[in-house]
């Protein structure tokens, strides 16, 4: 007998029935949904605590129907570390953007990973600071124009190179799982869901630190249509940030 497939489309229990503040074509909505679908599927809503970052998803608690704490900019993994150590039975995940996780919070990220904290980290990489209006992020591509790199990011001018956090932390022994995915087309969305689920399962099995980096389109800041934005992810972003399992 073939496995019965549930084709009914409905909102996940863990996702509140409200409209979000995200821009048209933004990737956050997709990832919010994937995370909540997984929380439902794993039946962990009643023991899940999320740490929301400072950035576009700062009010994620308005959309998620489980316990959520804020964290100061970049400090989500410090907050999550304490939360999980105090209450090991909780499932604790952070949801952070590139500025939060890879710039101001890089120390917290590296050290939570290096301690092998049994946490799940959802890392949204949109190659810019979205909420503050599109400044250069650690993940901004070379040549990419932002409000603080008006002529394009230029390492020769001291702008530095795109920071590959996933590759960086994959070297640490405390890290059990790192995968880079995108939400640029339905096939990639399915892969993303699988990766996020793996990162949660790892925590449930006490395996240590898991990070899923999700390349996410940011059409408004990139000055593109949503269609152009997903194309740009696939044609440009993945050149610097290749998809696939890193660890």
């Amino acid at each position: 007998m073939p496995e019965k497939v549930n084709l009914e489309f409905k909102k996940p229990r863990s996702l509140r029935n409200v409209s979000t503040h995200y821009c048209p074509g933004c990737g956050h909505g997709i990832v919010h949904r994937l995370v909540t679908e997984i929380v439902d599927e794993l039946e962990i809503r009643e023991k899940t605590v999320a740490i929301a970052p400072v950035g576009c998803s700062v009010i994620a608690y308005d959309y998620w129907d489980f316990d959520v704490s804020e964290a100061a900019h970049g400090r989500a993994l410090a907050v999550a570390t304490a939360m999980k150590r105090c209450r090991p039975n909780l499932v604790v995940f952070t949801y952070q953007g590139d500025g939060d996780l890879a710039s101001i919070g890089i120390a917290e990220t590296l050290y939570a990973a290096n301690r092998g904290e049994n946490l799940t980290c959802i890392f949204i990489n949109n190659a810019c600071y979205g909420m503050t209006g599109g400044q250069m992020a650690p993940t901004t591509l070379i040549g990419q124009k932002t409000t603080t790199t008006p002529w394009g990011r230029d390492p020769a001018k001291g702008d530095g190179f795109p920071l590959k956090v996933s590759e960086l932390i994959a070297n640490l022994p405390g890290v059990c799982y790192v995968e880079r995915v995108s939400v640029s087309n339905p096939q990639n969305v399915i892969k993303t869901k699988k990766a996020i689920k793996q990162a949660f399962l790892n925590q449930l099995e006490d395996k240590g630190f898991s990070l899923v980096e999700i390349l996410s389109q940011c059409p408004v800041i990139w000055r593109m249509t949503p269609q152009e934005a997903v194309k740009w992810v696939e044609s440009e972003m993945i050149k610097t940030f290749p998809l696939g399992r890193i660890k």
Partner: protein
Amino acid sequence: MLYKGLTKIIILDSRFPYKKYMSANKKVLITGNEAMAEAALQAGCRFFAGYPITPQNELIAYMAKRMPKAGGVFIQAESEIAAVNMVFGASAAGFRAITTSSSPGISLKQEGISYMAGAQLPCVIINVMRAGPGLGNITPSQGDYFQATKGGGHGDYNLIVLAPSTVAEAFELTMLAFDLADKYRNPVMILTDAFLGQMAEPIEIKRQRPKNKNFKKDWALTGAKNRKPNVISSLFIKEGVLEEHNKKLQEKYKSVRKKEIRYKSLNLKEADIVFVSYGIVSRIAQEAANILKREGMNIGLFSPVTLWPFPYKQLKQLTADKKAVFVFELSSGQMVQDVEFALDRTLPVYFYGRMGGEVFSEKDIVKFVKKKLTYAGKS
């Protein structure tokens, strides 16, 4: 006679394996740093995150040893900032949590302190002050009074600030700090200095279970089982909502000001002149007062225990019929501004302080007082 006590009875929780460390019903010699760590454990604190900095290293070492045995979590954080944000997480999880440091480290912690005040998370922060500004040096100072009592971090908030003057008081006030933090859902700071942190004093141990207050934390993040999801946040975006939140905080601070002011006084009835000082300095001032008493002068002593809320009214009432007030601090003169504010130019206020980790002796105080009074007598 609060100024007296070198020894005091410390109540030990019988649930702890303290025998290894202290023996009951006798005096033990313990440093201020260790006493505060032990007090935190006995107050039910089960989370510590910190970063090495002199002169508070004995505290973090004590915690590293004892916290796991008490079933709690000890983390040596990668930075002061991470440490304070870990305390944010532990507190959000409903745990009694503490972080400790010394002046430069406390500057770094201001981010987390402001966030916890905003999100109404209880926690205890210990500042074993050293001399500044900048890296300064590792010797005792009271130069962080402004930072502790007037803000430090951003936004309209207040910390409850407690200042012990003996090791025994450091123990008691640390225990009190956790109750106040939970009661008001606000960070509480123990403001002490390198002297008290490093100095060992005999304290008396009595085996008895302390009265730990249990505060209901239905706001804590424990998983949304059989209840609506809880959110810990200091973010209020919608128009007018943040002001309402601020008003709520101010109401809370008002109630703290009303109920929680603590101070010590000695010989105020008979005195013509009052010495005002806090922490370790109040003991030097007391010695100076003793010397001057032998020379026929009558000195009263006043020492705020809560630096915030400051005992403005109490100080004014108790000094109403006096001739002058002297303020001594190991700073350029920070608390003296609160004393002047309290007295509102009704009395002459003389200030004597030293900075940079230098300390005055009781003889220095005597000299200063005599000089000022002679000058005042002539004019």
